[in-house]
């Protein structure tokens, strides 16, 4: 179990690194899909099969397909890849690297405090998850729902306006 966990974690980290450093937009997105798969496996190993399945259905299966869809429509060519290369100049790495290094230090400190626990937790099924979402975390669920509704209304408004311009 530990071997599977850590090898999957390494895959997730490597794939995510390739997303950030990749110059080709579609290839980078596909690495992101691989990274999401790895995270889904991690969820599964840690006793959350429902969350793992949702990770694949919603993130890898729906949201990322929409991303690929948009990138496909943009039809990025060689010029965009060169631009990306310029954006990835060493000086641009400086700020994020410093901030990430601080975060890494803090994270390592937290890990030292907490000590190593067992990877596999209690298995959380769909029923327990549903009950938790609609009792303990009800406020967060409602707020997320409101946010999504606002996004939906906004998108509808934008789409509608453009159609009136055409006429």
């Amino acid at each position, binding site marked *: 179990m530990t071997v599977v966990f850590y090898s999957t974690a390494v895959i997730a980290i490597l794939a995510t690194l390739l997303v950030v450093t990749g110059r080709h937009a579609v290839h980078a997105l596909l690495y992101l899909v691989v990274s999401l798969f790895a995270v889904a496996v991690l969820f599964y190993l840690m006793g959350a099969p429902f969350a793992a399945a949702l990770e694949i259905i919603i993130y890898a*299966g729906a949201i990322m397909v*929409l991303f690929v869809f948009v990138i496909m429509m943009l039809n990025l060519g060689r010029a965009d890849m060169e631009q990306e290369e310029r954006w990835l100049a060493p000086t641009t790495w400086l700020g994020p690297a410093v901030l990430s290094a601080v975060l890494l230090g803090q994270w390592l400190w937290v890990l030292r405090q907490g000590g190593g626990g067992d990877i596999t937790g209690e298995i959380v099924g769909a029923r327990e998850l549903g009950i938790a979402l609609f009792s303990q975390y009800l406020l967060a669920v409602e707020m997320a729902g409101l946010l999504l509704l606002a996004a939906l209304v906004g998108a509808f408004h934008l789409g509608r306006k453009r159609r009136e311009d055409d006429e």
Partner: protein
Amino acid sequence: MLLKIAEILFIFGVLILGAAALTWVERRLLGLWQDRYGPNRAGPLGILQPVADMVKILTKEDWIPPFADRVLYVIAPAIIIIATFMVFAVIPLSPSLGVIELNIGLLFFLAMASLSVYSVVLAGWASNSKYALLGGVRAASQMISYEVFMALSLAGVIMMAGSFNLRTIVEAQQGLWFVVPQFFGFVAFFVAGLAESHRLPLDLPESEHELTAGFHTEYSGMKFGMFFLGEYVGVIVTSAMIVTLFMGGWHGPWLPPLVWFGLKMAFFVALFVLLRAAIPRPRYDQLMAFGWKLLLPLTLANAVITGGVLLAGS
């Protein structure tokens, strides 16, 4: 362990042979319904036609266009094969037969269905030609939209069985098949399954008359063969899921469970072929409007009413 491996190989082999045979069955059935013969030259009744097709497809030049994105172009057909075959791992064929019993079996099916979109989209994009790209774009929006209704139409089934486990769902239909209380869910799932396997009448991603062959325009040889095979396996898998979720799975009188499962599945496969012969292709905006304006409210109402009835009864 050995027995399990034999079981997996058996299911895998039946599936491949079934898909190959289906290419012949479909053409013969289409011929029957269109008042002509169909392929009847190779072997008795033309039953060796899939073998002839296989020889042709394997010996054809396997050409990768120089303007294509090589890696993705090669990966794309593999994805659809993997995604469709993987679904069969969670389908319980009889009380004892079935590769794996997952507690999230239904979600696994939905996950694989949503991943098969990548195959079509990437094939369309990696081919780097206008027809393929248009096919890929159509496929992406069609399959993303119909995935929504597919998942929603199953909400009622999940509520009634109280589980995502497909074996539990089949066992819950011991007395009454879910097609009766979940009729609207069944209809929505059927249409969504048709759209997901992008078969005629809903084959807009590859509609020959406008897009030559849509997303697989540039493909040839066995890479095209994999899309072809993936489509037929998709039809079998969708039929198997309809049988499992709505038609009581292996339940039935007199005959052994596996035979019942096979018979029900064959019925739905034939229905898929009949739809191809009977219904013309809709326009693209009609397809989208049908989904979002009819199926979405229908499945939502179905889920709400099922939930209400179950809550009142408990």
